[in-house]
């Protein structure tokens, strides 16, 4: 395999793996210019001095080339680490009392986390994110697919299988929506980039209260538009199979559709929230008290019955908000005095 690739020309390699361009560009090598050269000869053509100037050596260049391919393939295969379920084994609360039961989180299910500020909601999300093995303050242990991950697995995932989304997150890149999505798609090595970009853009616009164009710089998107883009991008492009959401209630996005989108893409979703609509759309809710998990409530049929009317109230409020935003007169005809 290694020798085969060494004998190939740069053009042949680019045809086989278009993303390999990225690696050449890191060494400032113009892969079009050297297209007809063989990989094994690139070292001597450019000369050792060239690589020294690039703070490297021809040996490290070739060696890195194969490592890069290996990692790229792992990325394409979703790092071979699909999460079907997560199990949270009991830890201890702030009074050093043991939590009473363990919890299982499954693919395609939404779990809401509720509890007062400072009760330990973020700590639970942090335990899951770090796949804690009785080595965090709570002493919780997380199993992946029913098994404790070894250190190697915890390290090697590089945080790739858990995505986080919080109110504090902003876009910082100086790019338009389209450029930004293209860049992300390239780094994920997907095949039909323009197709994926279009799909995320369309989905984000459905989720966002106010539409935005592809040319808008990501840093200029409103709070709601940013959140909508982040959710659509995470659902459709992130390799993560677990999504941790820290409060999105006031962001001005279609909350219910956002959750449905994530679930339909087979993610395990955890959402820390006090929004009745979000909490009741979840399959279950975890109650956190005093640093520990105190209750697990399944969303009942009875509760679900009220979802529709809750959604109506929520829509009414959103409608009022939009009227205010547009500077219109407020239409109270739907409201009792």
């Amino acid at each position, binding site marked *: 395999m290694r020798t085969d690739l060494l004998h190939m020309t740069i053009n042949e390699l680019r045809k086989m793996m278009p993303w390999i361009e990225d690696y050449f560009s890191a060494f400032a090598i113009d892969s079009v210019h050297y297209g007809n050269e063989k990989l094994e000869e690139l070292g001597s053509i450019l000369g050792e001095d060239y690589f020294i100037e690039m703070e490297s050596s021809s040996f490290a260049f070739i060696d890195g080339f194969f490592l890069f391919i290996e990692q790229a393939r792992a990325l394409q295969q979703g790092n071979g680490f699909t999460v079907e379920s997560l199990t949270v084994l009991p830890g201890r609360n702030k009074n050093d009392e043991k939590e009473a039961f363990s919890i299982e989180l499954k693919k395609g299910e939404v779990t809401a986390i509720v509890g007062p500020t400072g009760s330990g909601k973020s700590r639970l999300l*942090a335990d899951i994110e770090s796949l804690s093995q009785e080595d965090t303050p709570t002493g919780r242990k997380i199993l992946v697919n029913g098994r404790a991950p070894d250190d190697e697995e*915890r*390290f090697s995932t590089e*945080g790739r299988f858990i995505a986080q989304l919080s109110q504090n*997150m902003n876009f910082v*890149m100086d790019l338009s929506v389209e450029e930004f999505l293209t860049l992300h798609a390239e780094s994920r090595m997907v095949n039909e980039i323009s197709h994926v970009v279009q799909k995320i853009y369309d989905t984000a616009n459905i989720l966002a209260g106010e539409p935005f164009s592809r040319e808008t710089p990501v840093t200029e998107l409103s709070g709601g538009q940013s959140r909508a883009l982040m959710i659509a991008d995470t659902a459709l492009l*992130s390799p993560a199979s677990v999504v941790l959401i820290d409060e999105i209630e006031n962001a001005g996005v279609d909350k219910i559709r956002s959750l449905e989108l994530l679930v339909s893409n087979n993610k395990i979703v955890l959402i820390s929230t006090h929004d009745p609509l979000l909490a009741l759309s979840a399959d279950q809710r975890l109650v956190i008290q005093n640093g520990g998990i105190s209750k697990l409530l399944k969303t009942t049929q009875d509760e679900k019955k009220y979802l529709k009317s809750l959604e109506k109230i929520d829509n009414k409020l959103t409608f009022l908000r939009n009227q205010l935003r547009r500077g219109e007169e407020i239409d109270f005809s739907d409201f009792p005095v």
Partner: protein
Amino acid sequence: MRLVTVAGPPSSGKTSIIIKTIEELRQKGFSIGVVKFDCLSAQDENLYSTHNIPVKTGLSRGLCPDHFFVSNIEEALKWAKGRSFDFLITESAGLCNRCSPHIKNVLAICVIDNLSGVNTPKKIGPMLKLADIVVITKGDIVSQAEREVFAYRVRQVNPRGMIIQINGVTGQGSFYLAKLMEKTSIIETLQGATLRFTMPGALCSYCLGERKIGDDKQIGVSKLVNFRGEEQAKGEE
């Protein structure tokens, strides 16, 4: 003594990461000392002291900071041995993005942050390229997509290194780093050890203290940017 070199651009979160990692190591009963190398001034000494971490500061002032690092690292190691620490962690800012304090067979860590921009990994150079572990900070305030793109860009320039995301405020992730530091091997001396990368070849009038600007002041090794393009190339022929 286990030695660890930590380097990274200014304000990337080096000090926070080191403090959080030391807290993890201390829980396991290790004692740790820090040497902070900087150029003009360093306020971090107070920060380390408030966490009861023994610290020494070295300011290079008029000297090349990386030359200064190499001339002092052996003494720093002796200081740490004299105090019977289990670990010595050195912290230095990679100021010209050309050097790196990394030494062969000594655990090398580079700290960079998600806010620095997607093209930054390509600009940083050997400090990042030759690191064993790349710590990426400030992931809590950028989008998931940006975190993924940034990590990919780091991967491009350093396919060998291990990437760890750490939140410098909460310390989330520092547990990983502490665990890896524990595995690093013990060294007795740095006599005869080799840097992973050469320092810049530079001996010009400015290295020797010249401050005046002008053609006749440029003595020794120097290099000119070709601003005139074709025109100048012709002139040289």
